[in-house]
């Protein structure tokens, strides 16, 4: 387990935060350092800096367990539909990374049925990244 935890410490994550991460995600013991690095690289791909990456992982350790292919599909869907500055979106709501494409698509379709245009919906979500879960 040591190497994957070292990968996280190198981001500047404190021991206290690490303790919380391991409490929330005991499966981290079983995630290889390569997989942890892969998740970090995905965040770098959308221009997250070290502070964003640290914030995302500390707030949402579940992100490390997500399938990389699902995260990349989510990123592609968001980009294809006009979302920009994904680094800021994920930093503003680290749990956004836990969505699957179908969840965002369902929300977008629902709001289109409510009469909004796609760019309004993108704006709405970028302005309030928690809106998808707000019933």
């Amino acid at each position: 387990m040591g190497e994957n935890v070292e990968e996280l410490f190198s981001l500047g994550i404190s021991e206290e935060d690490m303790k919380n991460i391991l409490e929330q995600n005991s499966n981290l013991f079983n995630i290889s350092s390569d997989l942890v690095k892969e998740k970090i690289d995905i965040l770098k791909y959308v221009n997250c800096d070290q502070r964003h990456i640290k914030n995302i992982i500390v707030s949402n350790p579940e992100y490390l367990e997500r399938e990389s292919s699902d995260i990349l599909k989510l990123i592609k869907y968001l980009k294809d539909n006009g979302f920009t500055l994904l680094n800021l979106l994920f930093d503003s709501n680290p749990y956004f990374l836990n969505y699957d494409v179908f969840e965002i698509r369902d929300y977008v379709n629902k709001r289109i049925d409510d009469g909004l245009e796609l760019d309004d919906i993108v704006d709405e979500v970028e302005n309030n990244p928690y809106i998808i879960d707000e019933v």
Partner: protein
Amino acid sequence: MLVEKMKELGYTDSDIEKIINQYTAANNTKNNLFKRLEGNYKMLISLGLSRNEAIKITKEFPLLLAYLDTSIEKKIYNIKELGYEMSAIKKMIIAFPQILSLDIANMEKKIEDMKKIGYSNKAVLKITTACPHVFGLNINNIKNMLIKLTELGFKYEEVLKITTKYPEIFGLSIENISKKIDDMITLGYNRLLVIKMIKIYPNILGLNINNMKKKLKDMKKLEYTNKDLLIITSTCPQLFGYTIERIKKRINDIMDLGYSYQEVINMSKKFPQIFGLSIDAIKVKKEFYDSIGLERLFIDYPRNLMQSVELSYARYMFYKSIGIEINKDNFRMLFEDQKRFKKRYNYSNDDLIKMYNYNEEKAKSRTLD
């Protein structure tokens, strides 16, 4: 002699009696018992299991003694070939030692069958690692369970996601799950909220309702009303998985940033998601807003914690460049939606952030310090 040797390995008298009785019943003799036991025990230790784990496995599954340690090693190799990491295999053996007696071809078929009903390969590996007893379930029963979950109010894709996130759900009956939903409704949530909470935090299905009631009671002592708690916990159902000490610590951590207890409680009522943000993230934003004279921003409007500091900084600097000084009366201009801002000033958020880079400015001011 046999008993003494087994005691040396760490078995108790009752373990020894159980193993000897079961082995003798299966084999009509005690011959080779110790040889098999020691072989299996040493093989399990060589995999990285602890002494206690090895004893637990050989005790819970004495049929393992029917296998030579070399056969067990081969079985483990075959399971690895299915895609499992050694750490996962160890976990599975400890939780479900019977896995060592399963036919590999049947395990492979179960994996394929689960993929046919919609799971990815990784999801199947994750589910079966957490709940190896799934290998013993009939695929039609698994399918039926998923369908019954959709009847409770989830879409099929949501069911696949929930069961992957929380594979332990396969250890629950639909009746238990339905009862949990009903019990949560009696706590004051409506059905829609309960479904939403389960989607966000499916582990809630494994929590004891009385413990949930106690958590709400404990949180009420923190000066929340029942209504506050329904909003907070339906927005952040993960709080049910935190100890009350951890919730209190989170409140204290936010207070350490310079807020009073009452301010933090009020902030969390208006923006429960504050419990899920990292302290550093809140600190960075607070420092920025304090530096521009908006010290009370998060106290009065904690939802503004949503916006990234990069965008707030860029907007602030833009307004400054056109002669608008942001203050307590016009601060909402920092949070205007992009469409309206762009219509007015012809700049997107992307444009602004390129023009006024928060990180570069911070690095500059650090150099000057």
